[in-house]
């Protein structure tokens, strides 16, 4: 009986430790693997709003992702807020991109062909999870130090004005390091812009 109680207590401790460990593992990998951003727009502002840069280093992914799905990178908007006084209609586009991309949104009015939210985005409104971008990295780009260096442009369909810009960079530091350490190998042709982005 005593040993059974001891096993029970031990099992509970194992469960507790496992979930807390899983939590820390999630914390250590999530930002590196699936970065997200929040941005506040103001159509009256002179300059476009800018989010913090989102960078994913493909050689610094969590073990599970590195093994199972390293060539699909998910970048997500947690929220977009309209801090201006005018309604706008959002359109999303990627600057400098030639990678295959899947777009998705939790917005009901999402138009997947036009990459727009087909309704007025009212002043003071905040959209939750309005955008997910999945970059699929083809074989030919995988051995580049910089796979993508561009950003997400959020513009107003009606005026065409860019309201916000989110810098996005997909890198592979292992390639970059090996290139740096090996003087015989040229980095020419592997840098920014080579993918016709």
């Amino acid at each position, binding site marked *: *009986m005593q040993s*059974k*109680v001891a*096993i*029970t*207590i031990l*099992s*509970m*401790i*194992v*469960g*507790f*430790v*496992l*979930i*807390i460990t*899983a*939590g*820390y*593992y*999630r*914390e250590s*990998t*999530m930002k590196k*693997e*699936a970065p997200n951003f929040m941005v506040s727009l103001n159509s009256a502002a002179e300059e476009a709003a800018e989010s913090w840069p989102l960078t994913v280093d493909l050689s610094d*992914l*969590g*073990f*599970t*992702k590195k093994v*199972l*799905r390293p060539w*699909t*990178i*998910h970048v997500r908007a947690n929220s977009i807020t309209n801090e201006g006084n005018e309604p706008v209609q959002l359109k999303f586009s990627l600057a400098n991109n030639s990678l*295959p991309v*899947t*777009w*998705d949104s*939790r*917005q*009901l*009015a999402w138009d997947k062909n036009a990459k727009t939210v087909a*309704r007025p985005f009212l002043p003071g*409104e*905040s*959209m*939750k*999870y309005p955008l*997910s971008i*999945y970059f*699929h990295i083809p074989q030919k780009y995988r051995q580049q130090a910089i796979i993508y260096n561009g950003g997400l442009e959020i513009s107003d369909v009606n005026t065409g004005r860019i309201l916000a810009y989110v810098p996005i960079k997909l890198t592979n530091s292992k390639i970059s390091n090996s290139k740096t350490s090996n003087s015989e190998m040229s980095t020419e042709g592997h840098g920014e812009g080579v993918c016709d982005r």
Partner: protein
Amino acid sequence: MRSFHWFKRLSTIFLGFILFFTPFALLTRLSFWVTGKPGSLATQKASCGDTCLLHPVEWTVQPANWIRFLENPLLLTTFVLVFVAFLFGPLFCGWLCAAGGVPEFLGRIIPNRFKLDLRNSTEPSAIRYGFLVGFVASSFYGLHISCAYCQYATLQDITTAFMAGNFGGINHLTFSAGLITFLTWFVIFGLFTKGGRGWCNYVCPVGASQSIFHWVGAKFGFTYKMRFIPEKCIECGTCAERCPMWAIKMNPGPNRNYHACIGCRECKAACPNRAISYARGVDSEMTLLVPGVVQATGKD
């Protein structure tokens, strides 16, 4: 009788799927149709997140988040489920939960010889309660576990992608925690574990919270529970073999574990001698966390 029971459960689990998960999410749609969509949800696609069963468990110790129940009363579903569990057992787990049902039923296609049999090697209920405590406590460590390791969202991501033909956009298969969830919930502890409910057995905080209430409720005579009739039992072990939650162990007669039982009644359907019933009544002897400590007497 067994095949009919199998079909009944499969039907209700499909009902659970269309109630909670996109593209159907009927519960969310129906609720919003009746009450009007609250706040920012008005502009969003329906999702299993609208009736999230995990967050409320986490929020029980976070008063700052209680306001969210006012913003979206659908989140109170968790509390309805624990109330039902108190009176009737964790029927949601056994009859409606698609995240538990899908691996259980798909796993039946795979021959048992390819599956892990962990029934006698671990104490799943105790590990699951440890998980539950850790899950609730995780917020104090600043950890955000519920969404990253969410079996419901993983199922929804995959089925939605299949239905929409949008295979590139399966959110939970793009980061390590999501991949671990998929591998453990669906593959290792699902398809390749006996019973197909290894995740429910070891991990699920929603099931664990319901099991606590079921265990307490089973002490009262007015609640429903699985009951054994010892004089009818021929100790064939069929019930223990069929239980997807490993809630019955033979010693030599059946010992049931209320901490694992999900009220699916697979044991009742499988029993060749009708020695198991689902009924009300005082249960004088309760199993502890470890099955086998107390043998069932089935006093009615």
